[in-house]
Structures are given as C-alpha cells and as structure tokens.
C-alpha cells in the first residue's frame, strides 16, 4: 500500500459538480482517516469522500451513485463502536455529514431541528438560552452527531432521564431522509409525510409513520439528513447523592428495590464498578465494591429532599456508605450529561450495551457476571486488559448493563485483543438469547443473526423495495 499511486474515483468530477471541488476528495492519504470510526475493527478505505451541505446535494449524489452502481457509506461523528459499513473498498462513496450542522430552534412548538452533522453539544448550546434541552445520549456529547446517534444506535439511545422518562426514540418527532433512489422524504407528520402539514408538531398524529424504520437502521434504508427533537424544559432544581456499595449484589439489590417503586425516586442514576479508574479517582479511596450516583430533578425542593431521603434509606439498608463530596459532584454533573463528565469520558466504544436490563431484575446481574466471565476467559486478559483497553463492568449507565471498551494505545496487539474480547462478548450474548445494542458495521450483522425469520424476511423485503440496487450502506444487517 505504501506510496500507492491511485487513479482517483471515477465519479470525482461528477460529484464535484454537485458539491463544489472543495468538498470532495479522493486523495489516498485523505481517505485514510475515513477508513475507521472509533471501533477496533479493521477499516475500509473508501474510494472518495464527499461533504454535501444539504439533503438536495446528497440526493443528487445518491441518484448519481444509483445510475453508476457505486455503494454509499456514511460518517457522522465517527463514534460508531461496531466498525464502519463495509461496502466495497476503493469504490465506496463515503458521505461525511459534517456540513449539515445547522440547528433551528422553534421554542413555541417545543421542537428543535438539527442537521445530521450537528453535535449534541451544539444542539444543547442552541437550546440553553431558552431553558430547554434535548433528551438524547449524554456520553459522546461533543463528538456524536444527531444523524449518527439517530441512525446508529437503537432508539437513538438513552438520555439522562431515561429512568424517569424513557428512551430517546419517542422524543424524536420526525426525520428528513434521502432514500436510496434519491427521493427526499420527511417522517413524523411533517411535510410530505402522513400528514402533509407545514410543520411537525406531534409524532403520534395519525397513520403509519416511518420514523422508526430509519432510527437505528445505520443508513441501510436511507440517509438521515435532519432530526426534529422535542425540546424539554430544564428542571428548576437538581440535587445529587452518591454511595459506595460493598458488593455487586448489594448494588443490584439497591437498584432493584428503588426501581420497583411506584414512583422511581431518582431522575438519573449511574453505577460503576470500583475498578473503573474514573470512579476510583474520584472516590478518594473509599473502600467498597461499586459506586452508585443519583441525581434528582424537579421543580419542588421539598419533594427532591424527600426523594433523596428515600434513596438514602434503601442504600444504607443494603450496607452502602455515603460517597464523598467529589462523588456527589460527579453524581450531579455526571448523571446529567453536563460538561464535566463528558470531558472525562469522551467518545468511547460501548459495544456490549443491551436493553435486557434497562429495568433491573435478577437476570441482569446474572447477565453482567456472565459477560465478565466471557471477557476474562479471553487468553491474555490479565496481561492485556489495561494496556489494550479499559473494561467497565457493569457499565451501569442508568440500568443498562454493558461493557465499555476504550482503546488505549491502538497497537496492533491491543486492537487484536479488543477484537477477541468483542467476539467473546457477542458469542456470550447470543448464547443467552440477547444481542448488543450498537448497530453499526460488523456489529449489525451479529444483531441481524438474532432476528426472527419473519422479521428478517420483512426487513429484506423492505430493503429490496427501497434499494433494489443495494447501494445504500451495503453490508449492514447482512443486506
């Protein structure tokens, strides 16, 4: 590959005519950064990268690709943990959505429209002056894009208030999508959708709505260029509390008991193993197994205090001890996705998320322990665990059980170890009858293998109808 002289992509000039020469490149060296996202899987060097500024430009590119038979792959923030879409190396037209980054706030109708390339932080920045926020993932706050999150993770993930208001999917009011034939469509009761009105006010208006077809599809059915979110008022008050637990069982018992209540007392919670370097660093050396952080939000301070008391009683009953001030601070900021945590926890690979334990139950603990055992069974775990990546088990973000692997120094050895670990985790998950939540690239194929035959047949049928030439992100979901 060294010094490879490339002849350039056949469609370069035609694409340049659509977006302007400044926004297209097929220089080999410039394609290298587009070969991979943050995952540890081997990359696929595309044949050309293009940065369209609008759905209209993208539509023209897609039509061109269809006419000429070139595959299209897509990049948002580059935070996909499950490898990039395979497509066809050197022929792929990779769409970098970065220029579609506009954010338009319509506070009267409690909605915000974000271009696919807009980062969560910029969406938040736009809404903050109005005292609102968007219910979306808190992790890769500066790096993940609206389009990437919506198309890349199931239900567009879970936000800081998942325990009290659920996953993010329902807060997505509608999408603008470029279909594989180049048509531009709007979902969610917006223009050209099931209600041909000017604006989107409700998602649940009437009739079949195609939003969910595109959410978490990875781009297989069309490329999301715009996401319309519900804007949510920022609560007036927020307080936090933290605990160090004696055992993993105690951690789980606490969460089980609190979550079973008619009214869950916390707004947000995160739990970590003490082996997590981050928790260790902030706990100031308090002895114990795990750490649980709670934040309680609301408009009444008295109510918040009562809820904190309720949490304390349960934690202390199970032998947990109060965290220090630093931990309480983390609880306040960390569970709510404000800057402090996202700067400490930048984009990372969270491949073993599963919805199994979104609401905890005894099986969740069993699952988590099984997953830990699977990882530890990988040869060289003891030697490589720290050097190759950092395992956070359980990655108890809200009640999500999973594991985060942060690639540390991406030496070939470290990456190979991470890939082996990934495979061990996936095999375990399928053995126990579940699948991981990340839905990009290689990982989508694992998930598709978990589909029922009926679902698989329907999905393949939809794909063939929308994309008969299979040009849109080929290779996702085993399409």
């Amino acid at each position, binding site marked *: 590959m060294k010094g490879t002289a490339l002849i350039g992509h056949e469609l370069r000039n035609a694409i340049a005519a659509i977006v302007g020469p400044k926004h297209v490149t097929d220089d080999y060296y*410039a394609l*290298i950064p587009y070969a991979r996202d943050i995952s540890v899987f081997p990359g696929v060097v595309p044949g050309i990268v293009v940065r369209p500024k609008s759905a209209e430009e993208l539509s023209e590119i897609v039509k061109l690709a269809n006419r000429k038979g070139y595959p299209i792959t897509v990049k948002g923030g580059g935070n996909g943990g499950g490898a990039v879409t395979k497509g066809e190396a050197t022929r792929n037209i990779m769409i970098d959505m970065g220029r579609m980054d506009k954010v338009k706030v319509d506070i009267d109708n409690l909605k915000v429209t974000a271009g696919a390339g807009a980062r969560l932080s910029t969406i938040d920045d736009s809404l903050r002056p109005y005292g609102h926020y968007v219910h979306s993932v808190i992790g890769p706050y500066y790096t993940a894009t609206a389009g990437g999150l919506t198309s890349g993770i199931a239900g567009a993930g879970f936000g800081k208030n998942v325990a009290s208001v659920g996953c993010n999917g329902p807060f997505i009011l509608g999408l603008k999508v470029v279909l594989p034939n180049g048509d531009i469509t709007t979902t969610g009761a917006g223009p050209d959708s099931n209600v041909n009105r000017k604006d989107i006010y409700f998602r649940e208006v009437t009739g079949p709505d195609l939003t969910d077809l595109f959410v978490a599809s990875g781009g297989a059915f069309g490329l999301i260029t715009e996401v319309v979110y519900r804007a949510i008022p920022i609560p007036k008050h927020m307080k936090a509390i933290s605990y160090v637990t004696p055992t993993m069982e105690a951690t789980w018992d606490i969460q089980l008991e609190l979550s079973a209540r008619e009214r869950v007392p916390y707004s947000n919670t995160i739990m970590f193993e003490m082996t997590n370097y981050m928790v260790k660093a902030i706990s100031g050396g308090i002895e114990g197994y795990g750490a649980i952080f709670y934040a309680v939000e609301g408009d009444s301070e008295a109510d918040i205090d009562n809820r904190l008391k309720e949490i304390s009683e349960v934690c202390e009953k199970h032998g947990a001890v109060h965290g220090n001030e630093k931990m309480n601070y983390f609880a306040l900021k960390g569970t709510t996705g404000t800057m402090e945590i996202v700067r400490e926890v930048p984009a990372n690979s969270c491949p073993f998320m599963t919805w199994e334990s979104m609401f905890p139950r005894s099986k969740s603990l069993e699952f988590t322990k099984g997953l830990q055992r699977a990882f530890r069974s990988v040869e060289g775990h003891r030697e490589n665990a720290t050097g190759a990546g950092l395992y956070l088990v359980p990655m108890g973000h809200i009640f999500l059980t999973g594991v985060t692997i942060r690639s540390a120094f991406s030496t070939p050895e470290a990456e190979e170890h991470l890939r082996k670990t990934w495979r061990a985790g996936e095999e375990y998950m399928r053995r126990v009858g579940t699948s991981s939540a990340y839905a990009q690239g290689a990982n989508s194929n694992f998930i598709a293998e978990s589909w029922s035959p009926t679902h698989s047949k329907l999905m393949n049928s939809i794909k063939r109808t929308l994309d008969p030439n299979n040009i849109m992100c080929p290779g996702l979901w085993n399409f």
Partner: protein
Amino acid sequence: MLDKYKKMVFACSRCGMCIVGEAGYVCPIQVHSGGFDQYVARGRNQIAKAILNGELGYSEELMESTFTCLGCDSCHAQCTKMDPLTGEKNIIHETKIMNALRVDLVKAGFGPPEALKHVDASVHLSHNVFGDSEEKRALWAEGLDLPKKGETVYFAGCYAAYRNQKIAKATVAVLNAGGIDLAFLGQDEWCCGVPQLADGNIALAEELIQHNVEALKAAGVKKVVASCAGCFHALKSEYPEIIGSLPFEIVHSSEVIAELIDSGKITLDTEIEKTFTYHDPCHLGRHEKVYEQPRKVLKAIKGATLVEMSRNKANAWCCGGGSVVATAFPDMAGEIAAGRVEEAKSTAAEAIVSACPSCENGLSAAARKSKMEVYDLAVLVATAMGIEI
C-alpha cells in the same frame, strides 16, 4: 522525527473531541478548508499512524494538510486522552506531531512550501524573517541607550524589531517606568526559531537556538522578557526541549506589567474610555497558560472596559497566523483572522487587544475594512501611562 511521538499518534482513539468542543468548532483550519478529517487532529493522526506503520509514504500530496496546521493547540486543549497506565492526561500534542511530520516530510524532499523557503533563506542570511539587514534590528532602540549586558534582557523578536517598533519601544518604556533596567542584545538577537521549528527546518532552528542561548548567556542574563508570544513560547518551552534546561528565567511582558501594577510601581491612570476585548495569542494562552495577567492589565486601565469574546482563554480562536500558515497560506490565514475580527465585533468591543505582534499584525490587516481598532497590550499600557511612543 515522527517516531519520537509514536506513543501520542497511536494513543489517538479517533473520537473527534478535536472537532467540536465546549465553544463549538475547535480547529480553524477545518472550518476554513473543505473540512475533511485530514485537516483535524484525529485525521492527521491517522495519516501519521499510516506513515509509522509503513502503509503510507511521504509525498507531495501530504504537504497541504501537514503545513496547514496552525499549531494553535486548540485540539490539544480539548483532547481528553489519558494514559490508562499512568493517569497522565492530555497526552496527545498535535503541534509536536505535526512539527515532527514536517521535519520528516522536508527531509524526504517534500516542502516546505515556497514562501517558507524564502523565509528560511532570509533567516539564514540575515537572521530575521523579513530578510532585512541585520543592522536594522537595533534601529528601534536608537537613543534608548540600552546596554548589551544585564540581568534582565528584553527579547524584542523580529516583528517588533522590524515591523512594529512601537511595541518594542512601549515595552521598554513601561518596564523602565516600573524600575526595571533592561538590556538588549542588539544584532546578537536572532530570530527565535519558531518559524523554522514549524516549517520543518530543524537544522536552522537549532542553529538559531544555539546562538540565542549563547548570546543571552554572554549577556549575563538572569531573566529574559519577551513581548512576542511566539518568542516567549519558543524560549520558555521549545529551547529546553532541544538543548536542555536554560540557566535563566523567561517571562512575557504581560506578566511583568501585571506584577508592576500589583506592586503599585506603575499606574495606568491616563483615562482611555473604551471597550476592549482581549484576543489570547495561542503561544501565550494555550501553550503557556498565561490567561489572567493580560486581562488584569486591561482592567487596570482607567476608563477601560473589558468584554470577552465567546471563544476565549483555552477556547480562543487562533488569529490564523500560527505555525507559519500566514506565510504559506495567506488567504486562509486572512479568512481566519477576519472571522476572529467578526467575533470581536459581535461583542460590545470597540477595539481588540492582543499580546503578540504577530497576532496584532494579522488581526490589524483583517480589521481594516471593519474599522475595528487593534492594539498591542504594551502600546496600550504606555498610552495609559501617558507615555508617548
């Protein structure tokens, strides 16, 4: 040379914190280019990694992305990469990686861009970036009777010595008024080497560094005061990395002026009723963490009001002149500077103040059309002290 930074290159997890940060977009080059990943740290690191892995050779093609890095350190300020074994934070220094890549690229026969070759030729010949005669370097100090030897030496730098002499004169006048006796190396002050550290000409940089250190030692210096942020950063951080620790202290003039105000040795009581915004020079701010002293100085001016641009301190937007980009890619640098001036205009400010002659130069050019005034801090302080320059 890239080998030296292998650990940093390989540590990059491609997360993209170098693209958008707490104040929006992080990299001026990304915003003012096609925006592809080769213009931001994570992409540059993947290219560097491919080179280190033997998957990509040096070529002419690499020059544009390699030489457009401003070295502004904005990506470094946002990067959160931590060494999991030691807990050390912020371990990826993109400016160092890019400078090393430039050295290797030039060694391989590619680059630097033509305009930089001219700068290097000038520096080689007459020890200043403008190619002016060596004799002219000391013209600004005529009549000031500055000794060549002394415990405190003022290092003027090429810009203040050759292009904006008011800055040098003002700095000396203000410090003298505060009771500080300054010496000046005269023609023995050579270019600090910052342009060569950034354009891949490491041999010339080392020659300049060696000379300046010897000249300063010969002057019997204990403290060097620089008014140029670039010279200050070079002397303080780059020199020791190349030739080991120095037997003298390096300070920026803004730090000294702030001290003089604190100790009551100078007062800025000539009223200047104006609203200023402060532009943090990258070499002074992000590279050396001098954020508060210049602001303290501005606030001490009678009648002056300081307002902040939305991107300030660690989030400040580069003026576009960093790492010789203004020389090699003047149009792009001009666009970046114009953007910074627009940002200043969006505040209530009537004037921009900076503490680097190079920033002052770039911003002044960009501000002409918009009628925004641009001042160097030392010049403004002199005015506020009633000193005529």
